């Protein structure tokens, strides 16, 4: 009557598919609750930032810049500013929520439950997506106060924003997973993410750069995201849009795999 090792696997006590689905929903609901609970930190700052950018760069400086990429400067930067908010908020949401869970130990609530690692990653990434999209909507609303936006390819806009948000949500997850202290969660956004975003064609078209700088810019993944998104509005882009979307989808798959593997190896959360 040895019921420990060797025997054939027993049927599971509950339908695990349903457990997965409800567990996933629960993580997303919890993340949504967090975003709403601290809305002053999660939703408002991006609206304020976007307003400042529009007033200073769009209205004051933009008038002297004139046309950029065939549009008024205000219009040109609008999609980039929305994308910038989506990028930083998706990242910030997951990095602070998951690091908080790790630091406050309540990540253990999920680790002891039957939820598999990939589902926890997916749940947090979906939480980042919720934040990214909510902020995207808020910033778009602000944008419409300053600039007229017409939609050329709605599907491309949706694909670009969802893939971009997913990429940075997963990036935030990985950052939170490997970070050992609070410094290590602010390092990447400040020293990598922000510079890449500013040089990612939010404020200018890469066409105005000298040849070598253009070449360097094409190595910046954010350039592709911003341009694919802008293409959805204007129908013009500095890059090949289909290729850009493909690269983003590949990045989502790659980062997801890395996150799950790291989670499984337990770096930082399981002893």
């Amino acid at each position: 009557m040895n019921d420990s090792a060797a025997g054939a696997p027993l049927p599971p006590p509950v339908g695990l598919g349903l457990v997965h689905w409800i567990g996933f929903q629960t993580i997303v609901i919890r993340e949504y609750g967090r975003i709403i609970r601290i809305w002053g930190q999660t939703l408002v700052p991006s609206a304020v930032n976007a307003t400042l950018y529009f007033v200073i760069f769009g209205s004051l400086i933009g008038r002297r810049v004139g046309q950029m990429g065939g549009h008024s400067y205000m219009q040109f930067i609008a999609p980039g500013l929305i994308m910038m908010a989506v990028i930083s908020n998706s990242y910030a949401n997951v990095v602070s929520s998951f690091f908080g869970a790790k630091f406050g130990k309540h990540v253990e609530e999920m680790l002891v439950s039957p939820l598999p690692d990939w589902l926890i990653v997916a749940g947090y990434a979906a939480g980042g997506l919720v934040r990214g999209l909510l902020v995207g909507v808020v910033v778009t609303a602000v944008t419409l106060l300053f600039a007229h936006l017409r939609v050329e390819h709605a599907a491309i806009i949706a694909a670009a924003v969802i893939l971009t948000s997913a990429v940075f949500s997963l990036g935030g997850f990985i950052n939170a997973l490997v970070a050992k202290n609070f410094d290590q969660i602010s390092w990447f956004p400040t020293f990598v993410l922000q510079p890449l975003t500013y040089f990612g064609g939010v404020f200018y078209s890469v066409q105005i750069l000298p040849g070598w700088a253009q070449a360097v810019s094409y190595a910046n993944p954010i350039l592709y995201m911003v341009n694919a998104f802008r293409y959805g509005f204007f129908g013009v882009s500095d890059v090949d849009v289909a290729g850009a979307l493909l690269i983003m989808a590949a990045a989502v798959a790659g980062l997801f795999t890395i996150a799950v593997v790291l989670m499984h190896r337990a770096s930082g959360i399981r002893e």
Partner: protein
Amino acid sequence: MHALSVRGLTKTYSNGVQALKGVDLDVEEGDFFALLGPNGAGKTTLIGIATSLVNKTSGSLSVFGYDIDRQIEAAKSCIGVVPQELNFNQFESPETIVVNQAGFYGIPRRIARVRAQKYLKQLQLWDKRDKMARALSGGMKRRLMIARALMHEPRLLILDEPTAGVDIEVRRSMWEFVREINSQGTTIILTTHYLEEAESLCRNIAIIDGGHIVERDQMSSLLRRLHTEVFVLNLRDSLAAAPQLAGYPTTLVDGRTLEVEVTKEQSLNDIFMRLSALGIEVLSMRNKVNRLEEIFMRLVEKHGTALEEGPGERGRAGESRPASRSEAAPLRGHGGRS
């Protein structure tokens, strides 16, 4: 069916501490089981492996037949755990915490809300359900973790020092509560440093020390094995010196307090007759220490690691412990029938 079955389990932490050195243990379904041991013995590590918070180094573990290497999700869905340290989000409310926990186990929200009411009421937290968890008292936080562990109605409930820092009244009501849960069929594994708690609640017991199980027995037969007991007598009149009672070693603690050591074969009547003959009147009597405590101390002392670690610095002491001492443990085999 074994609720928990452990074979040859070892764990070496990345800093080189060997927390488990080959643990074999079976816990029957329906049991109320005590897992005792001094600080740093490996209790929390063992529980951590069962709940996948700690990755094992070698060996195997199964929960109701589900092997954690092959059917981890099924194994985990059978366990509810109340951890030693607080691990909920202090900024969430008790109700949110327990409802979400149920969700992680696949309980639909509608059902989870009903259960939340049931368990928060039973643990006297219902009127705090909307408060931030941070604002609960220490004892309430412990009870919240018990409610949380019950939300998916697990077949095995593991309690890692649930009564640490809980006042006597609440502790007693918690005992009643877990007794009730156990009588309804839930297997319970309890770790505690209050040995009278283990003695009164648990039917079976294992004592772990230095990463080895040094004793595994029924509570009652373990207590029967205790050969001598020390009784403390409270006397009416003050004595100048300890009286001579043939066959019973005595110590006078102070004028009115006398300690008498009694072996299992001797009788208390005999002692009282002798004391009466000497004109010594006894007002009251008690055990010097809790009987389980006595056994516990002997076992872990013999094993060579008795409480040499202060509670504040467990871990450090574990590292510096010479391996040879543990390896030469005289008690292995004695208790190793698990």
